[in-house]
């Protein structure tokens, strides 16, 4: 079995080398942040699978949450002379020197999922990623439609200072503020985790205003899943007594929706492989592309949950 496997692997290698030398394949260097969450793993898989499907040669490097690893990887991409460099920066700042080196080498850069702060915007060609503010707006819009513009809202925010937490709050409040009968009476951080989401929801429900809460808005699905348990333990029906909307669109959220315990989830799509490589192809061909490209993301409610559930990959 083992021998068979290694023979097979060797065969594949030879085949790979042959085909690589045969056709003039596009070579892309991609530096990923790490593997810190299921979302990130799905993101990585999507990129790898799409590259394989399209026959693009992908040099993949995992930075393990460290900027120095990522800079090293970017320099090695220059040395290898890849056609396009794409990466998800670990942090926002400190990229100018290495990006300038890349520019001098004449390699176009595509940012994926996270942005960088640079004084010279020509250092990268385009940025493709989720628009967190828009996700907040989508949650708000869905809620307006669902409740007819009347709601007493409790909000579970993400980790203080995190970009998705700030932006998802901003987008949501933008929509809510135009409806005078929708107000947020409780807002507290649940740290993006189930345990904290549950703990904070418990305290929301026990406050004197707790009985008025008709809606829960959670900045991610995990906090909503924790809060659902707190609501059940308080003897209420999540999804009915309290309408729940959250963001991310992970599998657990779809399961909860199928069980009628969650009402809506706004997708934050990690499966950007197809869109990313469409973009990379254009960039490699020298076509002009927009500086900021939003990932295609949907809004799913209970009615779609059962049909969508088997398709969820993460």
């Amino acid at each position: 079995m083992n021998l068979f496997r290694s023979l097979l692997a060797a065969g594949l290698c030879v085949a790979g080398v042959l085909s690589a030398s045969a056709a003039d394949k596009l070579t892309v260097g991609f530096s990923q942040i790490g593997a810190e969450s299921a979302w990130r793993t799905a993101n990585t898989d999507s990129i790898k699978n799409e590259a394989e499907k399209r026959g693009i040669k992908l040099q993949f490097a995992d930075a393990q949450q460290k900027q120095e690893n990522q800079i090293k990887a970017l320099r090695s991409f220059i040395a290898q002379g890849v056609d396009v460099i794409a990466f998800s920066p670990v942090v926002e700042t400190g990229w100018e020197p290495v990006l300038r080196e890349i520019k001098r080498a004449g390699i176009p850069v595509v940012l994926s999922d996270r942005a960088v702060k640079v004084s010279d915007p020509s250092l990268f060609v385009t940025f493709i990623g989720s628009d967190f503010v828009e996700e907040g707006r989508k949650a708000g819009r869905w809620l307006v439609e669902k409740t007819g513009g009347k709601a007493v809202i409790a909000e579970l925010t993400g980790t203080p200072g995190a970009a998705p937490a700030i932006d998802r709050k901003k987008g949501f409040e933008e929509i809510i503020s135009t409806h005078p009968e929708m107000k947020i009476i409780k807002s507290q951080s649940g740290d993006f985790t189930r345990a904290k989401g549950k703990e904070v929801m418990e305290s929301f429900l026990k406050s004197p205003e707790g009985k008025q809460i008709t809606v829960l808005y959670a900045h991610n699905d995990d906090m909503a899943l924790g809060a659902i348990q707190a609501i059940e333990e308080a003897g209420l029906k999540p999804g009915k007594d309290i309408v729940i909307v959250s963001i991310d669109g992970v599998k657990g959220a779809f399961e909860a929706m199928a069980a009628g315990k969650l009402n809506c989830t706004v997708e934050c799509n990690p499966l950007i492989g197809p869109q990313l490589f469409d973009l990379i192809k254009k960039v490699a061909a020298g076509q002009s592309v927009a500086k900021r490209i939003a990932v295609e993301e949907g809004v799913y409610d209970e009615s779609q949950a059962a049909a969508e559930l088997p398709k969820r990959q993460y």
Partner: protein
Amino acid sequence: MWIDLVFWAGFAGLLWVNRSRPVFWPLLALGLLLLFNRFTTPGFFDLEIRDGRLYGSLVDVINQGSKVMLLALGMTLVIATGGVDLSVGAIMAIAGAVLAQVVGVAHLSVTVAIVAALAAGLLAGAWNGLLVAGLRIQPIVATLILMVAGRGIAQLITDGQIINFEQPALVFLGNGSLFGLPFTLTLVLAMFIFTALLVRGTALGLFIEAVGDNETASHFTGLSAQRVKFLVYVFAGFCAGLAGLVAASNIKSADANHAGLYLELDAILAVVVGGTALTGGRFQLAGSLVGALLIQTLSTTLYARNVSADIAPVPKAIVILAVCLLQSPVLRGKIARLGRFLPKTKGGAA
């Protein structure tokens, strides 16, 4: 109304009984914090019966605080030997991961899962003990290894996914109630009594304090300091395993990335607030429990008062600082001296 009266009379009695013990200070701080909530945080003391169980913020304090209380029991003994265990949070994640993997993925029985999870905790503790007692690596470094690696191990076990489980017996562990009170309270009390009997009913407590006070001297009296040290790390690992079970059961899933994150710091804080010195030696088991309760009461208070998470660490730090200052003999001496030497004015100086 009379329940209120009984509660405060009981608390005052508790303070009076412990007036000359070290546990007095954290207890006093807890009492003051509760008193503050009684009058300024609406609904904090509201209790009602829902679905045959007690329901209210105070119940949440006990249930959510149980994890740190369990950790603090093990941590107290480790700190008493002059060591520290930074890996307990990561061990919680490992225990939760093992639990969820055994019932959720391998579909074995609940008993097997619990035994496996606790065994994982013991094993992790034995690893720490081996490094500290066997190889004489400094505790802060030795346990740092598992603190960093442990979460990775937990991720490896769960394959980076959050694994859910629904088995009623497991869910009961962290959410169920016994006699209307959270089951976790029973669990913590049972562990407390067991630990107290272990260290105060036998000479073990004395050994631990001796090792913490002066390892060389205790060695010359014929005590195997290394064996005592090994034992306390194994015990801390067991406590962390138990806390990991409670944490996983509480959210009906194993979240390897976040379970027990930073709880080692809360546990150390609880022990210190409870009156045990980080330098080792004498330890206060009950004090650590009170310290853990104080920390959780603080968190719940901040939630209940809608204090934003951005600034929540500030009031927390102030209360902790106040308790530490209350316990400082140097400061207490200074204040007493100040009172004695200052000229007596109307209203009194200090």
